[in-house]
């Protein structure tokens, strides 16, 4: 490129400022969206890859084959003593266990407990995880029963600037103990599901009944293998191992209902509990696709407009040829111009991404940063690719035009009918994607709103859940006293203990309920223990029968042994699961085989779990003294300000059991955690989709502008022949409306398949109404009309005499 070529480019850009700004800006926004969403995808797909030799580490999954049971599927937890049994049967097994994790334990200081990410691990932890240490010897620390290692940030929190090595910390996972800090490890990065900041030596919990009980799950077990082959070979022996080891607890062929499997550590983040594509992976794939398609729309637009406008420069090219420019010089000029322009757009995109990242981080709950060492070379490659795409047509086609013919022609070659068709096809493509994005955004927004407002079977506001009351370190007497103290607080309307509540209790229990006259174990139902007033706190709606009555002895299962018939209440799903024709039909029926239970009532389903999971068919016991049972959470119905109520409850807690960390929140907040990920995804999707639509409009505007410019003379002819202003507007708008309407053919099936897949991840979901599709199409059409209307109106107002003179 010589000086004149650069000057020509500069003048062209500065002469058509709006065109240049929109065209380069559109590409820049596309690049920014791609960069930001690309960073998100990179973050999500990098989980555990920070760990040296992560590819050698495998999570042991427990795989339940229990169709119809809430347990059915895979979980990354195992029986406590699994590693010991594996070592006995497979000498040389390298493994460790992590028991605890995010908020699982606490650190006590001056008698007050603070929740921390505490975990107990085997001394062999460092044989599996090569956790980067800052100081001390982690391996030796964990071999010492009173040794502990701490993360850098937690050490700073508790020991300030002084050296933590050798200092004592009182930590509690199950019960408080003193530990000596013997090592400091680098903080676990954000892209990890292993949330630990204080590692304590794992004590073998043989005293626990369930430590070696097949069917129970406590902790995470990790194994390390030198190669995928050895892992595979090892994995093939696990079914036989389960059959052998679980014989006592689960009978012969135990592996048919419960087995264990190995999953590479890096795949754990995307593992689906039910198998198949997890909602998290679907989210990441979707957002990645939005980023790529947005960039594609921006590139298509840019190339489309650049090549279209290049046609208008045919005369300039012809003049340059007349003045002696050869094809090589012209090709160099066009490619150079294109790359320079795309380079400006790339730089703009990088700046936009940097400026927009804090906003995106806030919207998506992320902490992304641009890795320039990776991004700059990638952008350079993109500049070359898009530059070649945008410059190739003008470079080759225009430089081939015979100069004399172009100079003699009254009009510039603009690709003719074929060019028009290609451009129309590209409008169809980009608006197809834009409409699909609009449909997707609408459904995401409506679904996320729906789950926040849906009827959960109970009133979700003015409800507080005290989960820490279930802590094993709170004795029953103190639980009773605490419940009574809270009951007397002004504003407290009702309080009840129960085995479940919004956000869950931390435990799930289920068993099979044999049906009278039906052979086999019977259907699987979840069971929940409830204290006095539990259903009243929730305002649960009675569908049939009656609620528990404290005055009736047969309602209280604490007063009876398991083989004595006692009363239960089931939820509406339980009616179907137990094969009753209707709720009324279930009343007074006895189920349970040798552990008989009489159904006295049916309540509406209560959704305490994420809207993604189905509500389990459930039966409820009644305990007159639930404080005796473990673990029961406290459910408080109150009136007034939730913050004031939380503060009052905290006051009682700190007065009565300061040594146990306080875990208490409103039902709204606990449920919000279930919605958070989908809301963040929705926000990211909406931002990406909104910008994609904007870029599409910029492209449409550019094309409309180009087309109107090309058709000025035609407009003059038509007006001379009697076309009115509205006729011209109709003509020009109609020209763009056709591809936009055709775009629905792409958008509707695409959006339908994508959104049906996404909604399938929710048990509680909105219907895929045709209104979403029609609404998005109408909106896209309106946007398209508004985009081209301004220019069409301007063109329609041009004096025909002037238009006829236009070349």
């Amino acid at each position: 490129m010589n000086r004149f070529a650069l000057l020509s480019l500069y003048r062209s850009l500065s002469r058509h400022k709006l065109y240049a700004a929109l065209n380069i800006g559109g590409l820049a926004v596309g690049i920014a969206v791609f960069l930001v969403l690309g960073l998100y995808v990179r973050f999500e797909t990098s989980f555990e890859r920070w760990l040296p030799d992560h590819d050698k580490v495998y999570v042991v999954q427990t795989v339940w084959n229990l169709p119809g049971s809430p347990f059915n599927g895979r979980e990354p937890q195992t029986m406590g003593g699994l590693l010991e049994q594996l070592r006995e049967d497979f000498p040389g097994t390298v493994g460790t266990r992590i028991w605890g994790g995010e908020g699982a334990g606490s650190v006590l200081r001056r008698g007050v407990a603070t929740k921390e990410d505490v975990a107990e691990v085997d001394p062999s932890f460092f044989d599996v995880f090569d956790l980067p240490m800052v100081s001390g010897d982690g391996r030796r620390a964990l071999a010492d029963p009173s040794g502990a290692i701490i993360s850098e940030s937690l050490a700073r929190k508790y020991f300030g600037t002084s050296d933590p090595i050798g200092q004592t910390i009182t930590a509690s996972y199950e019960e408080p103990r003193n530990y000596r800090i013997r090592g400091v490890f680098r903080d676990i990065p954000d892209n990890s599901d292993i949330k630990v900041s204080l590692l304590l030596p794992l004590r073998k919990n043989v005293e626990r009944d369930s430590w070696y009980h097949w069917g129970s799950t406590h902790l995470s077990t990790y194994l390390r293998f030198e190669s995928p082959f050895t892992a595979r070979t090892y994995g093939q022996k696990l079914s036989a191992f389960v059959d052998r080891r679980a014989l006592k607890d689960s009978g012969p062929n135990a592996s048919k209902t419960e087995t264990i499997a190995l999953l590479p550590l890096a795949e754990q983040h995307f593992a689906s509990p039910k198998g198949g594509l997890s909602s998290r992976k679907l989210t990441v794939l979707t957002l990645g696709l939005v980023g790529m398609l947005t960039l594609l729309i921006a590139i298509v637009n840019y190339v489309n407009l650049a090549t279209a406008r290049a046609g208008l420069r045919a005369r300039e090219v012809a003049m340059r040829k007349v003045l002696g420019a050869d094809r090589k010089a012209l090709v160099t000029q066009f490619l150079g111009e294109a790359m320079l322009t795309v380079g400006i757009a790339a730089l703009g995109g990088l700046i936009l991404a940097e400026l927009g990242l804090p906003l995106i981080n806030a919207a998506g709950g992320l902490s992304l940063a641009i890795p320039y060492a990776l991004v700059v070379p990638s952008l350079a490659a993109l500049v070359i690719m898009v530059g070649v795409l945008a410059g190739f047509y003008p470079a080759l086609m225009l430089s081939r035009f015979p100069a004399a013919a172009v100079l003699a022609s009254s009009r510039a070659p603009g690709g003719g009918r074929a060019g028009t068709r290609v451009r129309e096809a590209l409008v169809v493509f980009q608006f197809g994607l834009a409409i699909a994005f609009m449909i997707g955004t609408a459904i995401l927004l409506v679904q996320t709103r729906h789950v926040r407002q849906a009827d959960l079977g109970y009133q979700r506001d003015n409800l507080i859940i005290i989960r820490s009351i279930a802590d094993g370190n709170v004795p029953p007497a103190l639980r009773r006293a605490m419940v009574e103290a809270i009951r007397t607080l002004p504003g407290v309307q009702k309080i009840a203990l129960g085995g479940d509540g919004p956000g869950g209790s931390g435990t799930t229990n289920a068993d099979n309920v044999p049906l009278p006259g039906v052979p086999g174990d019977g259907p699987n139902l979840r069971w929940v223990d409830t204290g006095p007033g539990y259903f009243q706190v929730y305002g649960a709606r009675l569908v049939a029968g009656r609620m528990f009555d404290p005055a009736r002895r047969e309602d209280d299962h604490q007063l009876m042994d398991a083989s004595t018939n006692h009363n239960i209440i089931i939820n509406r799903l339980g009616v179907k699961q137990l094969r009753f024709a209707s709720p009324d039909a279930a009343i007074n029926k006895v189920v349970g085989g040798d552990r008989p239970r009489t159904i006295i009532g049916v309540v509406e389903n209560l959704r305490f779990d994420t809207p993604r999971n189905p509500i389990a068919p459930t039966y409820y016991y009644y305990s007159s003294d639930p404080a005796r049972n473990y673990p029961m959470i406290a459910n408080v119905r109150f009136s007034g300000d939730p913050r004031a109520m939380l503060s009052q409850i905290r006051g009682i807690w700190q007065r009565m059991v300061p040594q146990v960390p306080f875990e208490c929140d409103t039902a709204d907040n606990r449920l919000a955690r279930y919605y958070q990920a989908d809301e963040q995804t929705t926000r990211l999707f909406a931002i990406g989709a909104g910008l994609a639509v904007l870029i599409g409009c910029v492209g449409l505007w550019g094309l409309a502008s180009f087309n109107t410019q090309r058709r000025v003379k035609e407009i003059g002819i038509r007006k001379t022949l009697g076309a009115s202003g509205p006729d011209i507007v109709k003509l020009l708008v109609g020209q763009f409306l056709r591809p936009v309407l055709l775009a629905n053919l792409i958008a509707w099936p695409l959006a339908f398949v994508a959104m049906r897949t996404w909604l399938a991840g929710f048990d509680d979901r909105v219907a895929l109404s045709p209104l979403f599709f029609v609404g998005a199409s109408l909106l896209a059409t309106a946007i398209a009309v508004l985009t081209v209307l301004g220019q069409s109106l301007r063109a329609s107002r041009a004096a025909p005499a002037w238009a006829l003179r236009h070349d």
Partner: protein
Amino acid sequence: MIRLQGIQRRYVSDAVETTALHDIDLHVAAGEFVAIMGPSGCGKSTLLNTLGTVDRPTAGRYLFGDRDLAALDETELAKFRGATLGFVFQSFNLIDELTIEENVALGLAYRKEAGGQNGGRRARVAAAMDKVGIAHRARHYPHQLSGGQQQRAAIARAIVGDPKLILADEPTGNLDTANGEQVMNILTGLNDEGATIVMVTHSPSHADLAKRRIDMLDGRIVANAMRAI
């Protein structure tokens, strides 16, 4: 049929004001064939555009029959053009993306009353193409035709709606002698059939085919004479 009274047309761009037409008074009777001549830049095309209502005079009155066209807005003028006028240009001004047949049909596209149903319109388009001898090229695109053929197509488009007035701006300017003669024969033939024609031309021989010749200079009519028959 046409009466222009004190027509002026001034163009203002930046600090420069150009007067293209000075106090033009002109009367054209129905069935006339008027040729306008004069050197380049004398205002011929501006006068023709004013007659064709594609350019508005800065001052003066333009009466078409009893109608004062100055009182019409843009939409009404468009309707007037579509129903009343036919245009023939030096550079044909056919639309490249449309076939010859479609280009001719465009002459009816903006007339609500003309032709009636599609079948009627098609017949009128076919008749117009027949009249100028271009029917055999109906499905071709303009760039596939010679200049003479393109101008004949443009004439077909101008006459397809039976206009009261045909305005021709140097209709032979881009044609060779033979094609030019052919186009002039068509125009005189149309005039003989009763069409009113106003034509701008540089060719004295073509001007001689008109019934009246107007000479212009510097935006003024300097001569206005009937041809002696």
